[in-house]
């Protein structure tokens, strides 16, 4: 098969993976080498579905021995199969990179023959890219569950980011839908990698291993777990495994099976999970505060507004005096605005006009703050505010969920 054809097949197999981020790493130039990486990441193009292309997202092979029910590459699916040699892949990456098509590589693979064999080939490929091809651009590598920890550790030396996918939010669901993947085979390398990461930060803070950290991905809506359970799992991954990021992908039926739901979940659910995820990582919330374990997030109201209405006794806050941590808890005020407010108020009291100039949108915030002692909200009881905010979202044009560029892909993962 000619190389163009194979690349097409291997792209098809990789395109359902959510992550395409090239951020979090800082690699400076080195004489005679190719490439650099900046912490903010760079988008190189956008596809017709509105997603960013930052990395060359591709499988090394889609010949899989596993049979995970939700996956398009599973053994029993009749699709064309192909693979690339490490050398072919390296040359493709270099050719693309020098033409400024991409920021780096996101390499994954189906499990060909055995997890160890697959992991070895992946490690060999990234090592070749770094040493023989002197490539210093961004590399995100998939870890293969079931491969030896030593192999995964070895591969991680050459990459910016590594990820093992949790796939499903509970052991029970994993057993049912991906019987060849064992919980421990996923968690054990994740634990090992987090220790490597922490240890290298302490020992040699200037040369951090896996500088862009570890991420994971799980499918939402293929199994019965609640958002409460999912957020607690996420919290645990951030607290105990030091993950940089958790990706969620709303289940989409690519195949019929009595064990899988016939209808996909409401796409808003994925969106709300990401909102909650942001609150955990940047806003100082804990999963336990956000919702009880047996509940789902509200689909009609954003997570922060919902939380604020349920905790209405701590509002309204005065914009001119509330500390940064509390400003972050006001719906409609984000990290940047909270910072700007704390900076600007050092130079004088802020009024409504000043906030407008600072681009603080008060649409939601006005129900939860006073500005120079004045309250501007059109309602002042939790019940009325809820109606009023939901009314706003109802009267607004139907939201296009696809506009959430960061984490767009609500389909399922197509690898291993």
């Amino acid at each position: 098969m000619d190389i163009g054809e194979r690349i097409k097949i291997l792209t098809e197999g990789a395109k359902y993976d959510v992550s395409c981020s090239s951020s979090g790493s800082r690699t400076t130039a080195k004489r005679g080498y190719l490439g650099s990486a900046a912490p903010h990441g760079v988008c190189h193009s956008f596809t017709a579905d509105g997603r960013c292309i930052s990395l060359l997202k591709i499988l090394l092979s889609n010949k899989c021995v596993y049979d995970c029910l939700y996956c398009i590459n599973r053994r029993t699916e009749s699709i064309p199969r192909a693979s690339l040699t490490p050398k072919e892949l390296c040359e493709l990456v270099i050719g693309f990179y020098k033409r400024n098509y991409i920021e780096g590589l996101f390499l994954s693979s189906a499990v060909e023959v055995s997890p160890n064999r697959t992991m070895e080939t992946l490690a060999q490929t990234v090592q070749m890219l770094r040493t023989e091809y002197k490539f210093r651009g961004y590399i995100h590598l998939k870890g293969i569950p079931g491969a030896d920890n030593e192999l995964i550790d070895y591969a991680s030396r050459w990459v910016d980011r590594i990820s093992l996918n949790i796939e499903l939010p509970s052991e029970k669901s994993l057993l049912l839908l991906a019987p060849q993947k064992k919980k421990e085979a996923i968690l054990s390398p994740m634990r090992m990698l987090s220790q490597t990461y922490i240890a290298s930060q302490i020992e040699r803070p200037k040369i951090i291993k896996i500088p862009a950290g570890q991420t994971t991905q799980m499918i939402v809506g293929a199994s019965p777990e609640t958002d409460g359970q999912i957020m607690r799992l996420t919290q645990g991954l951030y607290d105990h495994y030091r993950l940089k990021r958790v990706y969620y992908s709303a289940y989409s039926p690519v195949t019929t099976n009595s064990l899988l739901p016939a209808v996909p979940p409401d796409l808003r659910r994925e969106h709300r999970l990401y909102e909650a995820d942001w609150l955990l990582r940047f806003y100082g919330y804990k999963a336990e505060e956000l919702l009880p374990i047996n509940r789902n997030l509200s689909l009609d109201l954003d997570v922060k507004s919902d939380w604020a209405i349920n905790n209405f006794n701590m509002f309204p806050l005065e914009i001119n005096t509330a500390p940064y941590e509390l400003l972050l808890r006001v719906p409609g005020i984000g990290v940047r605005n909270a910072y700007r407010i704390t900076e600007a108020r050092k130079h004088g009291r802020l009024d409504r006009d000043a906030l407008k100039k600072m681009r603080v949108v008060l649409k939601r915030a006005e129900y939860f703050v006073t500005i120079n002692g004045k309250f501007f909200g059109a309602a002042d009881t939790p019940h009325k505010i809820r109606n009023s905010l939901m009314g706003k979202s109802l009267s607004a044009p139907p939201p296009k969920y696809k506009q959430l560029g960061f984490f767009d892909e609500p389909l399922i993962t197509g690898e291993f």
Partner: protein
Amino acid sequence: MKILLIEPCFAGFLTAIYHAHYSHKDADIITSDLNAPSFLDIQVEITTDTVLAARVRSGIIKRAGTVIYSDIAHAYLSCQDTKEKILFAYTKLVLLHGRAAYGMYQMNEVKEFNDLLQKVRGEAHRFKGFLRFKELKNGIYYSAFSGDNDIIELLLPHFRARMNAEKFVLHDIKRHKLIYYDSQICHYLIAPEEYSVTLSDEEAFFSALWKDYHKNIAVEGRLNTDLQRQCLPKKYRWFMNEF
């Protein structure tokens, strides 16, 4: 009104700041627009003086730090015709309050300056991704582009770090500016109006693979060309080979 008329360059602007600080304290406007002064205005022509400009530069750095200085320098690359007015107001604020000016988000001067700077930096950032190199027969990687703002200087360090063992050309079509990096040093050239390039043999191969990749990585069931256009406006697409 008193208008300081400058030559359209950053050193000219800094020279005018010097004069506005010492000899023309009552200056209201700095501009390089020859049509700006009206019959009622007092017009003072400022000759660019690199020594004075350097003094203002170190003055700003001493007073407010290198970050704010480079903010001002980068904002000057803007194509907006009100940039001198906005920068004059902001620089005055910076010289008065030093570093603290940075956080005065409620001030009009700061808001307008931040908007201006954001447009320049935002464009430069987009071009870091959207720029396309073509490999020429002689091994040089060539890119033609044109931005709204004069961002070639902002792009150079990025690509020099990235392609430091390669030879490449950045060519701003609109401004006829061309920088050639020969894998050691940079050459600043004025580009000819007419030019042609000969592509390497491999170029078509990689270009075709990239076009296919760009098409295949999109999920067919979720077409959203509105979002695509929002993130990647059509004005950038003429130099991108996938479109």
